[in-house]
């Protein structure tokens, strides 16, 4: 059944390459999103088998992240239309076609129940993502696209080596996650350790954590801002889920403690990098990307601590998707006004677009995990679990780094709203309806901060049950 939907999505995406008018592209996008909404409806209604074909299954993790992707994608498509409306039709259709193909590939990653299929689809996201990065065709865009292709491909090749080792350790022909979980229990520990390290290194370029986090930052910098919202949420979540599924494989092996230590180290280094580079950059899009690195570092720490930390990590990823996509969409509107992202030059946004500025300030509160932000809950849970396990040093490191993050983020966002502007303004480009729509995503996050529906907590409970 899922194959029928894949064919529909791919056909619509490919058709967009041939579209001759914006109206046709809009209709294709609407049809594409309707098809996704229908599929999401089937999943929610439970009128769907838990497995489709031999390579895809609809478990709680895949379904939850897919629903999140559909919601975020609707906003991204709407904002993209407004963001690129002055661009020529050739670029315009290529962008939307690639956006649809990227969304389809991400969907495949969420539902893949086979480690090789996950890997293939992640590689496909590299190809679609590279096309989107190349949108502006400037020297910076070419450079970013080249680096993205090169680093992601090398990373994915390294991950493939890890998958080969994992399969060798399992000594079996099945590459299904469930089968692998059973089979690696008695696998050679050295192979398994090497396999985990290689897969983690390779997929880190998608999840935007140490060591290959830089490429995600460059990608967000080069891509049009609404597409960056997809790269920083949907694609990052795909990387998280790919790593999380491998992490779960080790749950019943004697190596789990070692795996958690690795995640802890990766998480702390990512948090350090994110916190320090937030201060260094002079570009709002790179700034938000380093914020993603920092947040994914916290997620990795949650996985490293284990226990309630894993629950908090999954919850953190979900809420981060709402907040970060909203912030990127707000920054897309900022770019329309100033025609740039330079932190030291643009300002006075509160008097130019009050709704947008309020959205940014609320987003700042949410991303910094101040109550009622849902991230406050997840970070508190991670810290309390760290305290319970006696790892007070993790709390100390996190508190110091989060203080740096709080200072930097407040400083940058307040500068954007209140410092005197030094750049030329394009006031006719302001569309307050877009600011309102971006705020909707933030409100969804804040609702989750105040009230976590039972259905959501039950689903996360199932996701973290190994």
């Amino acid at each position, binding site marked *: 059944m899922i194959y029928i939907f894949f064919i529909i999505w791919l056909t619509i995406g490919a058709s967009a390459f041939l579209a001759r008018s914006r109206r046709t592209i809009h209709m294709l996008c609407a049809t594409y999103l309707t098809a996704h909404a229908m599929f999401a409806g089937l999943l929610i209604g439970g009128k769907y088998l838990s497995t489709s074909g031999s390579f895809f299954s609809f478990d709680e993790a895949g379904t939850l992240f897919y629903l999140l992707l559909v919601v975020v994608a609707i906003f991204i498509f709407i904002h993209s239309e407004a963001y690129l409306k002055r661009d020529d039709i050739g670029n315009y259709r290529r962008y939307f076609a690639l956006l649809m193909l990227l969304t389809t590939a991400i969907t495949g990653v969420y539902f893949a129940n086979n480690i*090789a299929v996950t890997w293939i689809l992640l590689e496909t996201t590299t190809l679609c993502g590279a096309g989107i990065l190349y949108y502006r065709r400037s020297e910076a865009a070419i450079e970013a696209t080249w680096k993205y292709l090169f680093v992601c491909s090398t990373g994915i090749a390294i991950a493939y080596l890890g998958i*080969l080792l994992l399969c060798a350790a399992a000594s079996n022909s099945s590459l299904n996650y469930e089968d692998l979980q059973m089979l690696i229990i008695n696998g050679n520990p050295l192979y398994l350790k090497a396999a985990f390290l290689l897969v983690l290194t390779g997929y880190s370029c998608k999840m935007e954590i140490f060591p290959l986090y830089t490429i995600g930052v460059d990608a967000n910098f080069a891509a049009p801002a609404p597409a960056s919202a997809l790269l920083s949420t949907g694609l990052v979540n795909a990387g998280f889920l790919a790593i999380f599924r491998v992490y779960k494989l080790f749950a019943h092996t004697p190596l789990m403690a070692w795996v958690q230590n690795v995640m802890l180290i990766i998480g702390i280094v990512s948090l350090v990098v994110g916190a320090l580079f937030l201060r260094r950059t002079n570009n709002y899009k790179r700034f938000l990307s380093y914020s993603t690195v920092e947040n994914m570092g916290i997620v990795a720490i949650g996985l490293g601590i284990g226990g309630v930390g894993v629950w908090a990590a999954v919850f953190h990823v979900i809420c981060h998707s709402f907040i970060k996509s909203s912030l990127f969409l707000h920054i897309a509107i900022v770019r329309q006004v100033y025609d740039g992202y330079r932190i030291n030059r643009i300002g006075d946004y509160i008097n130019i677009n009050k709704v947008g500025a309020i959205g940014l300030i609320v987003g700042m509160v949410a991303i910094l995990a101040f109550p009622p932000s849902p991230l406050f809950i997840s970070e508190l849970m991670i810290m309390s679990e760290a305290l319970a396990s006696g790892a007070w040093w993790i709390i100390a490191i996190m508190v110091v780094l989060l203080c740096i993050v709080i200072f930097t983020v407040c400083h940058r966002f307040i500068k954007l709203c209140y410092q005197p502007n030094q750049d030329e303004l394009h006031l006719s480009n302001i569309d307050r309806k877009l600011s309102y729509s971006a705020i909707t995503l933030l409100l969804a996050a804040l609702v989750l901060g105040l009230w976590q529906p039972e259905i959501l907590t039950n689903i996360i409970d199932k996701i973290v049950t190994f």
Partner: protein
Amino acid sequence: MLLSLIILYVITLIYISIVERFRNYASIIAVQGWILLGIALLRLHSLDWLELSFIITETLIFKAVIVPAILMRVIKNTHINRVATTGSSQFNSLMLSIAALTVSALLTYCVADQTINMVFFGVALYALLTGLILIVLRSRIFTHMVGFLVIENGVFLFSMAIGVEMPILINAAILLDILISVLMLGMFMTRVDKHIHTDDSDSLTHVKD
């Protein structure tokens, strides 16, 4: 015979770390393609004929012919035929390559057991290290691309060690080859060189903080 081909493959890896002319890089990648073809024929003969013919065709056409041809065309178009003079010397490169070979052999010895063919594992590891050394130590984008191709060939070799039981893994590796290499080589040839007018990775510094 299989062992002879693998030894020949190791020799190409040592050689690739000391050459300085781009034309030699392209030739070595072509030779590696032919060696991989021989190894695939010897190693995977027990596979279903359809799968085997797909793998053989891909290795022959893609690895042994198309990729080297594209590399040669890049050399012809860019008119640059040597690695940057600021790179490490041939002697240092040779020492580094031998060190990588020693590390690979030691690691292989440490992890030796029955589940993986250790010769394949060791050589694949050496290929991975050689590719990484080329990427890190050389400054030209062309050499980086060759480094990536060396890593990819190493991964393909390793997939053949396990792929007798799991052909899907080899097919996945082939997919990696076709999709990425063509895109990267194509992009390098048609976009990077044309727009940035350089082959030196030091010039790729527009995207930074």
